[in-house]
């Protein structure tokens, strides 16, 4: 994850919170024994990460984003993002019209290459190449 908070922080934002949110924050500060500002920072950062990841996943699922562009949206490396996709069951969406087409083409390329190889072996052995 690209940590955007690794540079020096230091812009403040003031927000108003409900009584119950403040109660919860106090409870969490007591539980975790970390400072209130550190706790709030980590909650906000986590929410931002989740938002970016979710946005990237939506893009992948509707076919608008690639893994590389999704990784950029999520602020992750290609590899880390691809692993997150697998963990979260986010799947590649291929054009169904392509089914079977490329596999057959690949077979024909390989077969042609092998036929050439066999012909040149035959030539080396003093035989004429096969005529098709």
């Amino acid at each position: 994850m690209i940590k955007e908070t690794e540079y020096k922080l230091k812009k403040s934002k003031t927000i108003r919170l409900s009584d119950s949110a403040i109660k919860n924050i106090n409870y969490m500060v007591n539980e975790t024994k970390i400072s209130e500002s550190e706790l709030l920072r980590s909650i906000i950062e986590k929410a931002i990460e989740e938002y970016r990841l979710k946005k990237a996943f939506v893009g992948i699922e509707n076919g608008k984003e690639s893994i590389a562009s999704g990784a950029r949206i999520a602020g992750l490396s290609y590899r880390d993002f691809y692993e997150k996709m697998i963990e979260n069951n986010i799947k590649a969406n291929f054009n169904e019209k392509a089914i079977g087409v490329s596999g057959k083409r690949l077979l024909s390329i390989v077969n042609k290459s092998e036929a050439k190889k066999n012909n040149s072996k035959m030539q080396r052995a003093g035989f004429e190449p096969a005529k098709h």
Partner: protein
Amino acid sequence: MESPVKPKIVMDASFWINITYLDLEKYLVKYFNICLVTKVEEEILNNSEHKIYDSKDMEKYLELKNTEVISIINPLNIPKKLLDNLQSNSGELYTIAVGIEEKIIICIDDGNPYNFCFKEGLNPINSIDFIYFLYLKKEISSKQSINYINKLHGRIKSSYIEKVKKSFKGER
């Protein structure tokens, strides 16, 4: 006279990750000369701050790179159409550019750029196409093919997988 070389492929990171996940890289090596671009190498090796260990595919990649089975190739030019449609400075962009420049097979397991290649008539190969090729080549049986495809359920849309499975019945 030298014997002709195997066909060349250029692959992206997702294809390599999935093919090694399926343990099918030996067939890639058997039938093809494998190339990839520097950016894809970086994506495979993932030298990010979060990397704790080398995964199996990273180790396999390094082994094949060190024995010169895999080679690095980079494009001289990037066509404008690619720049307009694909993520800038990405493995997919340079991989497809090399595929066009060298007129070689593009292997990619990423939906968006795969579909772009298909639309442009570049005949891309994904891991399922590769399994289908192995089936047609009689390297694997239809049962094995289905098993391999089932392993990709968490990575490739189920509707696509189900349609593919039907092509393994009978045709060879």
